[in-house]
């Protein structure tokens, strides 16, 4: 088995501390051994590799920035980013699984939850014994989540939930869903548990992207949840947006993993594929593509590292996260497509990872805030004018 040696043209390695490097190396090895050999099969069969969940838990990859008392590693945001990067080198679907569990389930429970909720859920989510999902997006409310129609009403002993969510990663697999709904016109978070009467989570079919990841609808028909299942600290649209910031941060790092894999594949292919008597890497047009790819990888890496350092200092702005998510996803998709071009017809086969990454990145560019929305978020920040509200 070939060990992945990384892509590092600017000695960014020297900017990482020892723990960060160790975490990166451990996850890199895990991806080489446990994910890359099996992922194409799962992608082809539209299945998520469930057997890796306990292994991800054992490695400590769920909720890695949260306190040790909940069974988490309590590491910094750069280490979290590196984990996302390495996982997405394997597959965006696997990275999505860990992103959702960490940033969209454990983070809101930790940030907005009661002590009882934290003590019960966080250790089980950290070990992978329980799986979570995050329900914000609705069929008619994607970029505009504030318009959601899912409603909670106060009933004796708890709340009654009605509505539907869509595009929910891990929905069908989840033991607990962090669901956002309007209670008296204001958005609050609720923990809806698998098996509660009136709650169902059918899997969405027909995806040409993220095929090794489960995407679901969440349907609530008079689901009565107990009083203790509201996230007491959540209030308004700001709460779910805080979660999305965590997840977007992880995506900005994650797609660099896809880029590295696509670039590496293209580079190796170009050096060994001979046409007209010499390797295609010897042709100027191929070199131009390879250099472009490496250049974009390097820029994205530097953007991420500074973003992570700012986040660790508590100084990061959500608009900076938007910029990294926006830039890196767009460039990752370009890099994947370029890699496919260098591989020619071979690029469409699942013998190589590039078409899978390319198809995955179509989703990754769109979810957690579309490219367009991030543009408008930054646009509003620099001009003072909101172009969408």
């Amino acid at each position: 088995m070939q060990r992945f040696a990384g892509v590092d043209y600017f000695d960014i390695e020297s900017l990482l501390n020892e723990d960060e490097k160790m975490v990166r190396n451990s996850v890199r090895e895990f991806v080489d051994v446990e994910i890359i050999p099996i992922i194409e099969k799962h992608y082809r069969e539209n299945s998520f590799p469930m057997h890796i969940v306990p292994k991800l838990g054992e490695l400590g990859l769920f909720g890695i920035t949260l306190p040790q008392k909940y069974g988490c590693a309590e590491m910094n945001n750069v280490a979290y980013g590196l984990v996302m990067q390495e996982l997405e080198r394997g597959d965006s679907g696997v990275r999505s699984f860990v992103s959702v569990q960490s940033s969209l389930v454990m983070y809101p429970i930790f940030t907005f939850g009661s002590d009882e909720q934290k003590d019960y859920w966080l250790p089980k989510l950290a070990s992978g014994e329980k799986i979570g999902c995050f329900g914000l997006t609705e069929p008619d409310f994607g970029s505009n989540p504030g318009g959601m129609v899912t409603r909670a009403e106060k009933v004796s002993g708890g709340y009654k939930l009605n509505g539907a969510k869509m595009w929910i990663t891990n929905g069908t697999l989840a033991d607990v869903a962090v669901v956002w709904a309007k209670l008296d016109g204001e958005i609050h978070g609720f923990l809806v548990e698998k098996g509660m009467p009136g709650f169902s989570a059918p899997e969405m079919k027909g995806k040409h992207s993220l095929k090794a990841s489960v995407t679901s609808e969440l349907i609530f028909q008079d689901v009565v949840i107990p009083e203790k299942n509201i996230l007491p600290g959540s209030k308004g649209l700001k709460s779910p947006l805080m979660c999305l910031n965590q997840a977007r941060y992880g995506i900005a790092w994650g797609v660099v993993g896809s880029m590295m894999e696509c670039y590496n594949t293209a580079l190796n292919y170009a050096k060994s594929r001979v046409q007209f008597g010499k390797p295609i890497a010897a042709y100027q047009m191929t070199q131009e593509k390879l250099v472009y790819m490496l250049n974009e990888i390097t820029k994205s890496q530097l953007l991420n590292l500074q973003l992570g350092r700012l986040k660790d200092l508590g100084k990061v702005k959500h608009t900076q996260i938007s910029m990294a998510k926006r830039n890196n996803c767009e460039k990752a998709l370009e890099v994947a497509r370029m890699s496919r071009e260098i591989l020619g017809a071979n690029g469409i086969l699942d013998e190589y990872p590039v078409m899978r990454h390319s198809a995955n990145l179509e989703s990754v560019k769109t979810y957690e805030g579309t490219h367009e929305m991030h543009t408008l978020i930054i646009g509003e920040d620099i001009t003072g004018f909101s172009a969408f509200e």
Partner: protein
Amino acid sequence: MKIAVCVSHVPDTATKINIGSDGKKIDPTGVTYIINPYDEFAVEEALKTKEKFGGETVAICVGDDAVKETLRKALAMGIDNAVLLKDSIYRDSISIAKALADEIKNQNADLVFFGKQSVDYDNSITGQLTAELLGYNCVTVVVGFQLEGNKIIAEREVEGGKEIVETSLPAVITAQKGLNEPRYASLKGIMAAKKKVIEEKPLPPAENYVEIIAMKKPAPKQPGKIIGTDSSAVPELVRLLHEEAKVI
């Protein structure tokens, strides 16, 4: 029971190696170093043995500050303590074995694991030399290990099969691929390792019996040759594999 694991810090097998300007050492620029892959089996077996029978584990490595990375990896996998026998000059296998044997004696370890060889110099001898210096029993190239009281039952890989041997503590075991599945360093392990101190001890000057006088890269690979494109080429292919390549 005290269990020692001797580890070595080696260039990543995926790294491209260049020879330094003196022609006697590799040029470390741009080379990534890792724990010797066979030593990972040794670490895993030490951890499994401790988990089963209790006791304490210590990882020992000879080298300069850079090798601490490998000791940290062993600690992150779960080893209790680490000792760096500090030195920055070249040591031959016997010189390394002497240093290790002294420290193992000092640690009072009665079970010692090595990788069967280091993938840098490939001498495949340090474990055996250390056992000899300590007067310990030694089983090499081990793919199965069982401890019952003082008795060790070990499975060895031999040409075309396996050999089951019995010996007793104190002993040195050198690990071969297949002995176990080394665990990954978990994030919690990495954080726990941060709190552990690597004990540093100076070494007396090396007394080497072997000196490296030159290092050379292997000759470049010859290009492959196409002997045909359909089934008519099979007899010739078989003949070449048998007579020229001598692989069948």
